[in-house]
């Protein structure tokens, strides 16, 4: 089966060159180098039609950048993004535009993701009219229909974003994305800014829409509980790389990578009462100067010499379960991380 969308060896680098003053300073002996951030470092990710892939990671791990590249907002520095098996950059004309519209995004901040100077009817209706998806005279009815679908009262369509609550604004953002009839939606921390009770409503909406419209999602979140609830497959990123990916059941039942294990252990859950926190040590390294070899080695309780030298490759450890850890190559002499009870 062809993936709906696939990232093949995709990287994103942000390079900040030295300006003239810094070059003079370096000439005079200052220790300055051009800064390169490997926000996303040679990532492979396939999303099958109808699948929900959860992408988990801490801040600065590159999960949002990867999502933006898949949504087509940001060009990749290297690698290919395949839409239905075809390199998206080779598409021209009508198919290119259709592919662009078919991938949409729902953002994190329900306030800044809506233009404050536009009414709901224009926020939702502008793009479908501009692209000829609906004739201008049907815009009103079309927007009303979308608003109903996402659970908003259509009589509010003349209102401005500031007149809605956070949850309602997120619904407007969803209606805006649905208006161009997408097949694939990137949700970038789309429920992170909402209260728990509102979060539940929006998650339910996502799942309803998936069932009714056959949508495919990339669900980016730092909230493992939400990801576990909604995803068919989970991928976990650390400093620009995917370190583990597996079907959700296997991912939570038998996490393999020490980082995954640490993360799952440390997420506070309601089931874990009065527990003793046993955090992994160290700070999240700056993506400006990631550690050598396996990026996780300075914080890893099982790190050994090879981890410092060599970056582990992703390899399949069970059907559909891939992980990038040198421990998988060694025999049982190395201690295995313990699976967790909470998830």
């Amino acid at each position, binding site marked *: 089966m062809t993936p709906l969308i696939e990232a093949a060896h995709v990287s994103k680098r942000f390079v900040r060159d030295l300006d003239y003053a810094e070059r003079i300073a370096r000439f005079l002996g200052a220790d300055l180098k051009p800064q390169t951030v490997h926000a996303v470092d040679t990532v492979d990710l396939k999303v099958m039609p109808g699948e929900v892939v959860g992408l988990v990671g801490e801040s600065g791990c590159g999960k949002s950048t990867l999502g933006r590249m898949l949504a087509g907002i940001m060009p990749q520095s290297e690698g290919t993004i395949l839409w239905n098996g075809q390199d998206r950059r080779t598409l021209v004309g009508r198919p290119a535009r259709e592919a662009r519209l078919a991938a949409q995004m729902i953002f994190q901040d329900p306030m800044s993701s809506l233009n404050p100077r536009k009414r709901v009817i224009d926020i939702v209706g502008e793009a479908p009219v501009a692209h000829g998806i609906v004739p201008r005279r049907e815009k009103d009815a079309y927007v009303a229909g979308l608003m109903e679908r996402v659970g908003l009262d259509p009589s509010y369509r003349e209102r401005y974003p500031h007149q809605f609550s956070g949850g309602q604004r997120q619904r407007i953002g969803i209606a805006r994305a649905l208006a161009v009839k997408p097949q694939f939606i990137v949700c970038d921390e789309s429920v992170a800014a909402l209260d728990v009770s509102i979060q539940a409503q929006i998650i339910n909406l996502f799942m309803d829409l998936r069932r009714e419209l056959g949508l495919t999602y990339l669900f980016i979140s730092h909230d493992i509980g939400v990801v576990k609830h909604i995803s068919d497959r989970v991928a976990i990123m650390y400093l620009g790389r995917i370190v583990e990916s597996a079907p959700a059941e296997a991912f939570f039942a038998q996490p393999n990578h020490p980082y995954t294990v640490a993360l799952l252990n440390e997420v506070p859950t309601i089931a874990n009462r009065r527990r003793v*926190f046993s955090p992994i040590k160290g700070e999240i390294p700056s993506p400006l100067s990631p550690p050598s070899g396996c990026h996780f080695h300075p914080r890893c309780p099982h790190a050994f010499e090879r981890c410092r030298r060599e970056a582990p490759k992703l390899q399949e450890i069970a059907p559909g379960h891939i992980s990038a850890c040198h421990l998988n190559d060694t025999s049982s002499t190395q201690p295995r991380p313990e699976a967790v009870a909470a998830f």
Partner: protein
Amino acid sequence: MSNPTLVVENLQTHFPTEKGIVKAVDGVSFEVGRGEVLGLVGESGSGKSITGFSILGLVDPPGKVVGGRILFQGRDLVGLPPHEMRKLRGHKIAMIFQDPMMTLNPVLSIGTQMVETVLAHENVSVKEARARARDTLGMVGIPSPEERLSAYPHQFSGGMRQRVAIAIALLHRPDLIIADEPTTALDVTIQSQILAQIQALSRDLGMALVWISHDLGVVAGLAHRIAVMYAGRVVESGPTDHVLDYPVHPYTIGLLQSVAANAPRGAPLRAIPGMAPSPLNRPSGCAFRTRCSFATPICENEPPLDDAGSMAWRCFHPQARRVA
């Protein structure tokens, strides 16, 4: 509890605005004892942070504590003259804020910000104050504390800044710490480090801790007792296990059912319908009744405070069901 460190009784903090009086806190009661951690839980706008600021007398004008009592070691803090209040703040009662990037003054060194805190309450030499600052920095797990004293906040990561803020709170070994979502802005692994630190410190130093949070998971792991707030009131309180396993108030039940991690994978979540009422225009009686599936006409009246053993709630239709 025989001699609680802090007793809050029917606290009311109101904000007069052009559009009417915002009753941000409208009848909050709870107590915390020595060495105890109370989790004060609620969604945004429930009044949990304002409660915290009310205890320290730090409510921004035009907000004002208009009713109730705040008994700290038996002494009522409501109506205490400002200079008396100032003597307690940072000395006997300390606070930790939510956003570690914003709580430290960017143009003053860490040392300055710590030393001034020591000198504000104790008549010691600058040298002594600096030594105390250094030791406290070490206590919260900051490496090479002596050098770090001359550093500025921008040279620290978010997690480290929060440790510095905690160290400042601990400088005088306070009897009570109010922590207002201090780990919300942090990543999971860093949050876990801070939680571990706080847990050890509160156990070792025996202070009372009020931990304000929207995250039930964090509170579950840390708190001895939980108080759940909705629309300016504590609607339910009790020991952590009781509140999380056998919640009584329909709001608590709804909140726990909304947490995705609690529900079976892929099943629709049993979300609370609607949204929290505007603080300007809360329903009469029980503020939750417009979203509550158990509501009856009686809920238009003020629900009384009921209790059974260590549990207390404000509801005409208390439920008894296992959620988790």
